[in-house]
Every structure is written in structure tokens, then in C-alpha cells.
């Protein structure tokens, strides 16, 4: 089965990569549930002009620009395989008669009636005389033209003020005011083409345009006109190409920096090669997963690769470092040792990135999802692919550990504490100074961060806006109605409101196509009136001639009357839209049909650049503009970031508490993060950097990814008792390397073409640097200031808080009802989970086992972890014993026990001494079988109830308990019991009361002097024993009796030596079973000048 897994995986990955799409539509970066986003999307889908290519031409003279624009439009129109249609002007020039004739048809009947009266034979002469008078006196040049060429006033369509103003103020959508800038719109044959096809299409169009530019007839001196491409297709193609570039360049840059860091640290090619391959494999698998889960990448989420690599490389560095530190250790053990840390780190960091799903922006959400998937994938690839490939084929001796090059880093002197405190003050003062002077970094409300930074198409669009006078914020108005008449009704309701908003300064201007809106039912009603007007052609012609008008003045009137006559006589009547070039341009520009058949009219709203938001609009009207999105989006993102940050801070407090269990260290962790952010804010303020839609989410990201630095450094400080030099050498350097990789990951996107992504990653990289500065330089000195460098608190001097009466009784209840194997499984799983939360427990056990196995022993961590799991097994046996289920305990060897049996038979007092090796409590039933009721000397449990409960449980299987320390006469009872030939059991390696400093495994060790004292007092025979678990279950071993002369124990020194001797009898057993010597609190004396350890 396993051999099929790899091919299937590769196949799935390839299929995923095959279906991967790059989504270059900026609208897909926005939350679809926002009303304005939904409106923008509908606008994009419903109005073809929103999907057109715009070719802009800028020339020195208006003639050159117009000639070239016309030639480009004409030439492109000759490529029907590429182009659906082209436009270089509105077509109004050749459409005036048709347009105004049609406009009259849409008017209310009373307007036509008034026109009929004005043109009636008895009235028209007066009208013409008035027109002439106006023509003689008007100062307005447009009126001179209109009155001259339209003597009958057929262009004076009531309500067509927008059209009348067309020539006065409304910008030509295809030309700048001076004519030197022209626009050609090009509708692609396939507007829904994917981005690669769009890029190819654009190249072909560009080729055609280049050829046009080379034509000799268009070279009329002066500089060559500048041609640019913009609009939806150009932006989409350019954005997608930019994404591809971002993806490859950021990945390459990150890999290069990672390689550099790795080479500087390890100078080994083979692991470096596998590291690169592992990262690329992680990248490809994640990309494939992304394709399956998300369907593709967008401009923001394509930044996942470098961020993910910068974080995943930490896992590989940790694994490889572990391997180098323990060269003889088998791969499985290395993996077992590093797996919890890597998985824990991957889970927490992935969780932080997954929180981006709630940031409110789909682009960021996908970035977070992909990075999280990449982190989990990377953890798996590191553990099961990278480590096997860099592990040595044959184990090598521990001497190779010397090959690890010592890392030379500047190590702060102890006196650096004062310097670091001064640094803290300096940082705080700097922060207050800079922020006081320059203020907090601003939050920008614009939606610009969602756009490319350096984009020819966006620059062309900006130039177009400037040239056409669109310098303000533009929003589209979508006015809906069941039919055109309903839309017109909504126009009528909307316009007064907009006019009011204009007067109030809320908007600058608006354009509603009310005057040129089709009303088919009204047009049908008007046909008869139009026919009557058309029938007046000859009398009107006569009246015009009599009024002194030449033939020039008649053409327009004749044409309009002719159109009316045509519609009256044709079967189709008045067309829905003017049957002219202008009408064909105007119809899709101003109207659309929704999928449900309803009509949508499109208007335009201009608001001041300095004003945020849009006026309130009536029902049936929606407004949205890219430039107005920023505020709404920012409001949403700020709200989400606030919640996210709060949640993450709470999670951090929990994490820090679980890691430290001390509020001082929790507060130090939080304080260092707070100062790091203060530093980041200071740098941003000093450099003028601002917060925006995207980089705001750097706050929770930095918090989530940086908290482990504060944990690592403080745990290292604990481990090394505040020795800064050791902390630097171990954790400091590792953090430096990991931070370097993280900064490379984030920083490589600083050159991203997407402004928001670049700013997000710059802030993240800057945040990591700030965290590093504070955590490495200042946090240690704070910690030492609070705990003292040499009197650092002994870590974890207390047993687990889970060790209490309630939990114990629950476990006993479970032991009574659940089988041993099941309970053991649960217990082991529980222990693994506990160790994920409290990895320091393993460190502590490893510290305790150091002298047993040798400090440099590669097995130390593995044995420590096994020790913890064995303890889980021991607990099960203990619970079962106290639940009344007697375990089967074998005897280690028949002869081992002969002397003990003989002493019992002789009713000599016997002192059974043991250590915390295996499960000594299982000896109770064994002694009971021998008819012995031993007395166990025990320390009080963490709570009194538990002490009583455990004593009762022992009593139930024939063991008396004496809690030493609670009764000053306790030892009298013990001596009495021994003198009467009883059996007393006690533990040597955990002093009850004040211990004595002895030697054990060559190290200073605080042990219980009770055995020596009792021996001197009673002369009892002493038998060391222990019960450990092997493959078959518990087995009891009796060590040879320790003989002594009572007289030899006269002085304290002699008793101390005797205690050391007693302990030494267990050294071999402990060496054979280091995984069952259970101590989870420090046992080795670290400060010889201090007194004995308090009893535990």
C-alpha cells in the first residue's frame, strides 16, 4: 500500500498544479458581502465598457492625436479575430439628427403638442423672428451655432439640459479638452479570456498598434505620440504577469537568503541542497493543496510562498541542529525529540495565519490559509523527508560533535544589564520623542494598497483621468427598475436628492442619463404626433426661406423631420435606442439588463477627493466606486483587526502562562512584545510609514509569530540560571537565525508589485526585527533584574498542579472500570499532550538524568521523554493498586531475596531503602504475602486529603504510612517498630525534612539522612530494593544487604558517608533503568554554599 502512496500523491499534486489559476481580478480581493463591492462587481459584469481595453494616445498636436487614434481604431477593427468593436469617438457627429429625433419621441405627449403649436403655420414666423433676434445678440458662441443651424429649435428638447450642456462642460470621453490626448476603446472578441490569453491578446493588439504608428502618413513631424494601454484587460494581464514575477522573485530571494544563512552557520553543501529541495517541495505541495482547496492564487495570496518558506525553514534548522548536536543519535530519536516542538510551533503559527480568515479581506484570508497549509506541510516534509536525507547513514561517534563550528557572536557582558536598562529607557524616550514630534503612524483610508505599485496600465489610467478632467473620486450609480419606465421614475426620484447633495457640497457633480433614456411605450404613443409634425415639412421649409435662412440652415431640420416620417411609416416604429453610431455607443454605456430581465441605468457621481463616503441614496439605487471603497473597507478591517488582536493577546497570555506558570515571566513576555510594537511604531512614525488596509493585519501576525521568541529566551534564561553567555550561544543564535529567515521571507515581498502586500510584509519584517532587538537585548536584563543572575529560581520546584485529590480519585475510579491497556494508552496520550504544553518538564528530567547518562549523551532528551511516558505507565499501576487491583509483581531472582527472608524470619528489624526508581509502592502486596506489614515513611502530599486518601489506600493492602514532618515524635514510633522486628521502608533520594548534601553519580546531591540515623539508633538490617517494569511487567529486585557497624555511625560525617554509600548501591540500577528514575523537580545541588533543599 505504502508504495502506491507516493505516486498517488504526486499525481494529485500535479492535478492540483494543473488546475491552479491566477486570479488577477482586483474585485476578488474585496469582501463580496459589502454592498459597494457587490455593486462594483455587478457594474463590471453588466456594462461591457468596464471590460474594454483602452488605448491612449498623447501627441503634441490635436491633429496628430486624432489621426492616430482614428487609424488605430480603424486598423484594429480589421482584426475581427481579436476585436469585437472599436471606438475613438462617441459618433455624435453623424448622429445628431437621429439622436434628437429619437429624444423627441421619448418626451411626454404635451411636449410634442407644444412643439406642434410652436411650428404651426400661424406661429412659426414669430418663432423664427425671435430666433433671428437671439442670433443677432447672443454672446454665447454655442448659441450662435445652434440658433443658426437649428432655426426651428428642434434641438431644444425639453429636459435635455444634459445634452445641451454636452458641448459646454461635459468632457468628451474620448478626448482631452485640447485634443492632444485621445482614447480608443477596444472590445475584445472574448472578454472572459483568462489572464494568459489576455496577455497574448494584448501583445497582438500592441503589435497592430505599433504597425499603425509606423505608417508614414501618420508621421507629421514633432515627437512620436505616446501610446499606452489600460482598462480591464490590460490591468488584468499586467497584474497576473506581476503576480508570476512576484511569486518567482520572492521565492528566489527568500531561498537565496536562507541558503546564505545556512551556509554561514553550517558550511555544508549536502544538507543545504536537501533544504532547498525540501522547501521547494513544500512550496509545490502547498501550491497544489491551494489549487484543490482555494482554486488558485490572487495578488495577495501569491505572497504566501516566501512567508511560508521563511517560517518553515525554522523547522529544518531546528531538526538539523538537533542532529548535529547529537551525532550518534538515531534518526527516529532525533525525530521524536524535535517533533513536538516543530508540530507545536507549526500549529500555533498556522493558527495565527488562519486567523487572517477573519481579517475581512478575501485576499488576506487566502494568504493566511495558504501559509497555514504550507506550515503544516513544511513541518511534515521536514520531519519525514528532510531529516532522513540529511541524517548520516551510519552513526558516528560523539566526537563529531566537536565539528560543530563555534558560533562567534558578541556576547553582552554581565555589566550589560545596566546598559540594557539604559537602552530600555532610551528606546522609550526615543519613542515618546519621535511620536510626540511626528505623531502616531497614520491610517490611510484609500483602497490603493489593493492596486499595483508600478503599473504601466494604472499609470495610463491615471493619465487618462487627468487628461479627461476626472480628477475627483468617481462612483458609478446603478439605478434599477422592472422596466425602462420604472428606471425613469427612479431617475426622477434620485435627481432632486443628488442636486440637494451637490448644493450641500457632498458631491461635486452627477450625470444621470434621464434625458436620453428610452421610454418605448411613450414613443409608441407619440408616433401620431410625430407624423403630424413631419407632415409640416414643406410649409416649414417655406417659412425658413422667407425668414432669410439659407439652405445650410435647413439640413438639420429636414433630417429630423425625415426620421419622424420614417418611423411613422415603418413597421418597427421608434427604435428602443437611436439607430446611429452615437446610439450604439450610448446604449451599453448607460443601460444594461439584469439576469432577471430588469433594467439598470448607469449614472456617474463625482465626489471631492477629500470627502469620504457617499450621500444617502433612495431605494433601487446603488453606488460604488473603487476610490470610495477605502473607507468602508478600512472600517471593516480595523474592526476585525481589533477583535483579532484582542483574541490573540488573550491566547498569548494563556500560552505564556502555560509555558511559564509565573506571572512575572508572563508580564515580561507581554512587556517585551509591547515595547517591540512601540519600537515598530516609532520607526514607522520616523520614516513616515502609514497603516493601511493590508498592513494593519501585521499586528496580530507579529504577535502570533513572535511570542515564541519571548518563551524561548526566558526558558533559556531559566535553564542557564540567567547566564547570558550561555543563553546567547544556544537560544540567542538560534533565534537570530530563525528571525533572519523570517525576515527574508517577509522582506522578499518588499518589492512585490502589489502595494498592500509589500507594505504588509515590510511591516511584518520590521516587526520581527523590533521583536528581536527587544527580546535579545533587553528582555534578558529585565529577567535578571527580577530574578537575579545567580540566584535564579530553580525551575519547576513543585510537582504538577494536576497532582491533587480530585484528579487522583478520578483516576482511581477509571482504573477500577477501564482495562489496564486502555488506561495506559490514555495515560500515555495524556502525558504526550501534557509535554506539548509543558516541554520544560522533559528538559528538567533531562537535567536530572545528565549526571546519570553523561551531560553530552545524545540519548538524554529521548530518555527523558521515555521517562515521562514510563511515569504514565507507573501511574496506571499505582491507580490500579489503590483501586484494589493487585498487580502481578515478579521477583528478580530467588537468591536475591534469601538474606531478606532470613532477616524477616529472625524478626530482626529491617530497613528497606529505595529510591524513586520504578514503582516501589507495588512492594506492599509482596511483603503482605510474606506476612509483613511494613511502615512506609512518606512526605505529606500536596493536599491533606490526598495524603489521607493515599495512606488509606496503602493500609488497604497491608502497608502503614507515617507522614514524616507532621508529628515530632514520629521517629520514636519508627525506632520502636524496628526494635520490635518490624519492617520500615523509606526513600533515600527525596529527603523528608532537611536533607544532607551527599555525593551521587559524582555530583552534589541532597539525600535523606533518615536511613543512617535509624541504623545508628536501632542497628536494623538494611536492604536496598527497587521494583521496575520490564517487557513482562513489574519486577522486584533486592540488592545485597548493606552491612555496617553501629559504632561506625557515631558522628554526622560518618552517617553522611554512610548515606552516600547507601545511595551508591543504586547507581548501577539507575544506569540500567534511567527511564524509570522519576524526578520531575531539580535534584542536583547547584549552589554548594546554600543550605539543604527544602523537603519535597
Amino acid at each position, binding site marked *: 500500500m505504502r508504495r502506491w502512496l507516493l505516486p498517488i500523491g504526486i499525481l494529485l499534486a500535479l492535478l492540483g498544479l494543473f488546475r491552479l489559476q491566477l486570479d488577477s481580478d482586483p474585485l476578488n480581493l474585496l469582501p463580496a458581502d459589502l454592498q459597494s463591492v457587490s455593486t462594483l462587481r455587478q457594474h463590471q459584469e453588466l456594462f461591457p465598457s468596464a471590460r474594454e481595453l483602452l488605448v491612449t494616445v498623447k501627441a503634441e498636436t490635436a*491633429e496628430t492625436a486624432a489621426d492616430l487614434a482614428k487609424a488605430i481604431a480603424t486598423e484594429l477593427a480589421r482584426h475581427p479575430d481579436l476585436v469585437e468593436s472599436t471606438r475613438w469617438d462617441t459618433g455624435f457627429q453623424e448622429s445628431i439628427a437621429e439622436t434628437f429625433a429619437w429624444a423627441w419621441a421619448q418626451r411626454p405627449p404635451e411636449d410634442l403638442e407644444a412643439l406642434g403649436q410652436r411650428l404651426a403655420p400661424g406661429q412659426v414666423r414669430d418663432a423664427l423672428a425671435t430666433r433671428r433676434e437671439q442670433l443677432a445678440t447672443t454672446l454665447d458662441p454655442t448659441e*450662435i451655432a445652434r440658433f*443658426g443651424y437649428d432655426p426651428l429649435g428642434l434641438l431644444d428638447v425639453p429636459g435635455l439640459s444634459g445634452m445641451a*450642456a454636452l*458641448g459646454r462642460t461635459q*468632457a468628451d470621453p474620448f478626448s482631452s479638452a485640447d485634443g492632444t490626448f485621445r482614447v480608443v476603446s477596444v472590445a475584445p472578441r472574448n472578454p472572459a479570456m483568462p489572464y494568459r490569453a489576455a496577455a497574448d491578446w494584448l501583445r497582438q493588439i500592441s503589435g497592430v498598434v505599433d504597425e499603425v504608428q509606423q505608417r508614414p502618413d501618420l508621421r507629421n513631424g514633432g515627437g512620436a505620440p505616446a501610446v499606452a494601454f489600460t482598462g480591464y484587460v490590460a490591468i488584468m494581464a499586467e497584474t497576473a504577469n506581476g503576480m508570476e514575477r512576484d511569486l518567482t522573485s520572492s521565492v528566489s530571494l527568500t531561498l537565496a537568503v536562507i541558503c546564505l544563512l545556512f551556509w554561514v552557520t553550517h558550511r555544508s553543501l549536502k544538507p543545504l541542497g536537501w533544504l532547498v529541495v525540501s522547501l521547494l517541495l513544500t512550496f509545490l505541495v502547498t501550491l497544489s493543496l491551494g489549487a484543490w482547496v482555494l482554486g488558485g492564487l490572487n495578488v495577495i495570496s501569491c505572497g504566501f510562498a516566501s512567508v511560508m518558506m521563511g517560517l518553515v525553514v525554522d523547522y529544518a534548522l531546528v531538526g538539523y541542529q538537533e542532529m548535529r548536536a547529537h551525532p550518534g543519535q538515531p534518526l527516529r530519536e532525533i525525530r521524536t525529540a524535535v517533533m513536538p516542538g516543530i508540530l507545536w510551533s507549526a500549529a500555533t503559527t498556522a493558527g495565527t495565519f488562519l486567523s487572517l480568515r477573519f481579517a475581512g479581506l478575501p485576499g488576506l484570508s487566502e494568504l493566511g490559509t495558504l501559509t497555514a497549509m504550507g506550515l503544516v506541510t513544511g513541518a511534515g516534509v521536514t520531519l519525514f523527508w528532510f531529516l532522513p536525507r540529511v541524517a548520516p547513514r551510519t552513526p558516528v561517534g560523539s566526537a563529531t560533535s566537536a565539528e560543530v563550528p563555534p558560533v562567534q557572536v558578541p556576547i553582552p557582558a554581565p555589566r550589560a544589564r545596566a546598559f540594557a536598562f539604559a537602552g530600555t529607557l532610551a528606546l522609550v524616550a526615543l519613542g515618546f520623542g519621535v511620536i510626540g514630534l511626528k505623531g502616531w503612524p497614520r491610517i490611510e483610508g484609500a483602497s490603493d494598497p489593493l492596486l499595483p505599485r508600478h503599473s504601466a496600465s494604472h499609470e495610463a489610467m491615471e493619465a487618462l483621468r487627468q487628461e479627461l478632467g476626472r480628477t475627483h473620486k468617481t462612483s458609478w450609480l446603478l439605478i434599477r427598475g422592472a422596466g425602462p419606465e420604472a428606471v425613469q421614475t427612479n431617475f426622477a426620484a434620485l435627481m432632486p436628492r443628488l442636486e440637494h447633495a451637490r448644493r450641500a457640497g457632498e458631491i461635486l457633480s452627477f450625470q444621470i442619463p434621464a434625458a436620453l433614456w428610452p421610454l418605448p411605450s411613450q414613443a409608441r404613443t407619440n408616433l401620431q404626433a410625430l407624423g403630424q409634425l413631419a407632415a409640416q415639412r414643406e410649409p416649414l421649409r417655406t417659412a425658413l426661406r422667407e425668414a432669410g435662412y439659407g439652405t445650410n440652415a435647413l439640413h438639420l431640420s429636414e433630417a429630423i423631420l425625415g426620421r419622424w416620417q420614417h418611423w411613422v411609416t415603418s413597421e418597427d416604429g421608434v427604435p428602443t435606442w437611436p439607430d446611429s453610431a452615437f446610439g450604439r455607443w450610448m446604449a451599453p454605456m448607460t443601460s444594461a439588463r439584469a439576469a432577471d430581465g430588469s433594467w439598470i441605468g448607469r449614472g456617474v457621481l463625482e465626489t471631492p477627493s477629500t470627502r469620504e463616503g457617499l450621500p444617502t441614496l433612495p431605494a433601487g439605487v446603488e453606488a460604488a466606486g473603487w476610490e470610495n471603497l477605502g473607507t468602508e473597507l478600512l472600517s471593516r478591517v480595523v474592526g476585525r483587526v481589533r477583535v483579532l488582536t484582542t483574541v490573540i493577546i488573550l491566547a498569548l497570555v494563556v500560552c505564556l502562562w502555560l509555558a511559564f506558570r509565573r506571572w512575572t515571566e508572563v508580564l515580561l513576555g507581554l512587556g517585551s512584545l509591547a515595547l517591540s510594537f512601540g519600537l515598530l511604531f516609532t520607526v514607522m512614525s520616523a520614516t513616515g510609514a502609514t497603516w493601511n488596509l493590508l498592513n494593519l493585519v501585521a499586528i496580530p501576525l507579529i504577535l502570533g509569530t513572535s511570542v515564541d521568541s519571548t518563551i524561548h529566551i526566558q526558558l533559556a534564561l531559566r535553564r542557564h540560571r540567567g547566564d547570558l553567555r550561555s543563553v546567547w550561544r544556544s537560544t540567542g543564535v538560534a533565534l537570530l537565525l530563525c528571525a533572519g529567515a523570517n525576515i527574508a521571507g517577509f522582506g522578499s515581498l518588499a518589492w512585490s508589485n502589489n502595494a498592500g502586500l509589500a507594505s504588509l510584509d515590510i511591516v511584518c519584517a520590521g516587526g520581527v526585527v523590533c521583536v528581536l532587538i527587544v527580546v535579545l537585548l533587553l528582555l534578558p536584563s529585565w529577567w535578571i533584574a527580577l530574578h537575579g543572575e545567580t540566584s535564579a529560581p530553580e525551575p519547576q520546584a513543585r510537582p504538577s498542579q494536576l497532582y491533587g485529590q480530585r484528579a487522583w480519585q478520578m483516576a482511581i475510579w477509571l482504573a477500577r472500570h477501564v482495562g489496564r491497556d486502555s488506561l495506559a494508552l490514555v495515560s500515555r496520550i495524556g502525558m504526550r499532550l501534557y509535554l506539548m504544553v509543558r516541554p520544560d518538564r522533559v528538559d528538567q528530567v533531562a537535567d536530572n538524568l545528565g549526571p546519570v547518562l553523561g551531560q553530552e549523551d545524545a540519548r538524554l532528551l529521548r530518555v527523558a521523554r521515555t521517562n515521562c511516558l514510563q511515569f504514565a505507565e507507573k501511574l496506571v499501576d499505582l491507580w490500579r493498586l489503590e483501586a484494589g487491583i493487585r498487580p502481578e509483581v515478579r521477583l528478580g531472582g530467588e537468591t536475591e531475596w534469601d538474606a531478606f527472608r532470613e532477616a524477616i524470619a529472625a524478626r530482626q528489624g529491617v530497613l528497606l531503602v529505595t529510591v524513586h526508581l520504578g514503582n516501589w509502592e507495588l512492594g506492599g502486596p509482596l511483603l503482605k504475602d510474606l506476612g509483613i506489614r511494613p511502615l512506609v515513611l512518606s512526605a505529606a502530599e500536596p493536599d491533606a486529603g490526598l495524603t489521607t486518601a493515599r495512606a488509606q489506600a496503602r493500609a488497604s493492602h497491608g502497608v502503614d504510612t507515617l507522614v514524616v514532618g507532621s508529628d515530632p515524635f514520629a521517629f520514636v514510633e519508627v525506632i520502636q517498630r524496628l526494635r520490635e522486628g518490624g519492617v520500615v521502608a523509606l526513600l533515600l533520594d527525596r529527603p523528608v525534612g532537611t536533607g544532607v548534601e551527599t555525593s551521587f553519580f559524582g555530583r552534589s546531591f541532597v539525600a535523606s539522612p533518615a536511613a543512617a540515623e535509624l541504623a545508628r539508633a536501632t542497628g536494623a538490617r538494611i536492604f536496598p530494593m527497587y521494583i521496575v517494569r520490564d517487557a513482562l511487567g513489574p519486577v522486584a529486585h533486592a540488592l545485597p544487604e548493606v552491612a555496617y557497624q553501629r559504632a561506625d555511625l557515631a558522628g554526622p560525617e560518618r552517617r553522611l558517608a554512610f548515606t552516600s554509600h547507601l545511595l551508591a548501591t543504586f547507581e548501577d540500577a539507575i544506569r540500567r533503568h534511567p527511564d524509570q528514575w522519576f524526578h520531575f523537580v531539580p535534584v542536583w545541588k547547584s549552589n554548594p554554599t546554600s543550605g539543604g533543599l527544602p523537603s519535597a
Partner: protein
Amino acid sequence: MSRVLRILTLFFGLGTWVSLGEEVGGRFDGVLRSWLAVSTNLTSFEAEFRQTRHLKVLTEPLASTGRVWFSAPDQFRWEVGNPPQSIALRSGETLVVLSPRLRRAETYSLGGASSGPAKDLMGLLDGAFPRSLEEWKRRFEVVGVSTNQGVLQLELRPRSASARKLMPTLVVGLDPGSHGLRLTEMVMADGSRIRSEFHSLRTNVPVSSNLFQVQLDGSWKTTQNDVQP
């Protein structure tokens, strides 16, 4: 027909624009400086005029009379018709065109960034009263100078392309001796000409500032030309 539509289109600012000759340069600076010297010494100018409109659409020219006032540096008032049918008032950067019969007032902000053929052309109405050679040259170029019927005629071309769409040529007629203003003639895109001949000239006499103020009651319909309702 198509020619007519084309010309009409020009007036709506949506068509092509008329091709013009190249820059003449500073060949006529001597004449300009003499004119400018007179004009800059002008604190006020008041005259009556007879205006003749030779329009291509009419078989006969249209004639009207009017008055003009100018007050340095940038105030003027044109009245056409008697009683006035059209009044153009400029004060600073604001130009207001009044149509008393229609009770209509249109305001143009000449200093605004936006432009358009009508606005640009309106901005040239004071072209006959130059105050600074450099400033004047930014708005016009001299195409030719000739003398016709005892009048020194400067043929000018607006530099604004959009203004040229409506009025390719402006002719300013000066007294050859005093360089005082004698006539203006606007040549429109379709060849129509609007000629204003001045008489009863009075220069540097006090002009009431009220002449240049716009005082409208509620019966007037006002239009701000820079915005599009």
C-alpha cells in the same frame, strides 16, 4: 448636410477641430509692444459699437448695436442690443453671461482647471485689452498684420485648441497712429464672421464699478458652467 452637421458638432465640442498654421513667432512684437503700451496706459475704456454678423446660415447679415466698458486690469462689460439682449460681465476670474429676455445667467470660472470650447472662447473676450505681452502671448499668437481701409489689422489665433474649434481666428483692428481699438472680428469655424466696429470711444474716464457687478433677483435662472447637473 454633412458639412453642416460637422460644423454643428464643433460647437458641441465633440468633433474634430480645424487645422491651423504654425506658430509665427515674434515677428510682430513691434506692433504688439506699441499696442500694449497704449493698452497698459488704459485705465478705462468706454465705447459704442455696431456689430455685424455674417452668418453662413443666413442670406443677409444681422446687425445690432451695443456698448462696451473696460476697467483695468480685468473688468469689462459687453452689452449687445438696445435694450441689451445679451450682457457679458467679467470681474477677475469670473465671467457672467446674462440673457435679460430669458432671465438666464451663466457663470464661467475662468481660473478653474477645467476647460471647454465655450469657456475658453469666453475667456478671450478681453483679448482686445492686453495688459502683459507674455500673458497675452500665452493666449494668442499673431498670424499676420495688415492695413485695410486705414485700420491696422492683427490676425490672431487662439492658442487654446478648444477655443479654436469655435473661433479659429480673431482680428483686432487698431488705429495706425494711436493704436487705439477700432474693431474686432471673430471668424467662426464655419466661416461666419462677427465684426464689431467701435465708435464714440472714451478712454481713461471714471467708470462706475457697479457696471461690473452682477445683481440678480430670484427671477433669474443661474447656471454654474463648471458643473454638470
